[in-house]
């Protein structure tokens, strides 16, 4: 069962769902990572829950890094510049759409929000087209 390629993704998804559910029950807040991060980098005063959640997210990742370093392999043969450009696109898009994979894809879909369904279908569709075009027409040389 552990060797099933779908097992760990499912367990990971369950943990993410649990985290979002507990955060909502405890604080009445949506676990939208782009929204949380977006508000934090604006340097305005942040409510305590936001700072605590982000601290948990970062330190959780840092604690897991030495335990399973293979899960942190970010090299996909693309340049740092391309990562930076992609990051700006993601930042811009998620702020414009008021959410990302977590806020719309997990929390929004769970609340049966049409707006979140539209956002999820849009970013999934765009990403699929982008991967298709990049894989065929853009070798990892920039």
């Amino acid at each position, binding site marked *: 069962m552990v060797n099933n*390629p779908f097992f760990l993704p499912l367990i990971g998804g369950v943990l993410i769902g649990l985290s979002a559910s507990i955060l909502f029950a405890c604080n009445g807040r949506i676990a939208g990572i782009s929204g949380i991060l977006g508000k934090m980098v604006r340097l305005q005063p942040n409510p305590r829950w936001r700072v605590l959640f982000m601290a948990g997210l970062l330190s959780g990742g840092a604690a897991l890094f030495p335990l399973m370093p293979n899960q942190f392999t970010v090299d996909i043969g693309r340049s740092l510049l391309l990562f930076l450009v992609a990051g700006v696109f993601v930042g811009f898009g998620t702020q414009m759409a008021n959410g990302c994979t977590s806020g719309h*894809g997990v929390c929004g879909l*769970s609340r049966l929000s049409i707006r979140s369904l539209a956002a999820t279908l849009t970013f999934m569709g765009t990403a699929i087209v982008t991967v298709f075009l990049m894989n065929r027409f853009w070798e990892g040389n920039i």
Partner: protein
Amino acid sequence: MHALITYLCGALFAAGLVLSGMTLPAKVVGFLDIFGEWDPSLAFVMGGAVMVHLG
């Protein structure tokens, strides 16, 4: 207590991302590459999360 739970929610979220493979760009690209060598496993992340959060 409240603060600790909120902090642990963040850590739990991180564990979910790491275990599921959402931290691996190669895996994410594989999931999105439906016209190539499609790796559908990440669909189970969103599926599992929505299932738990919905319930």
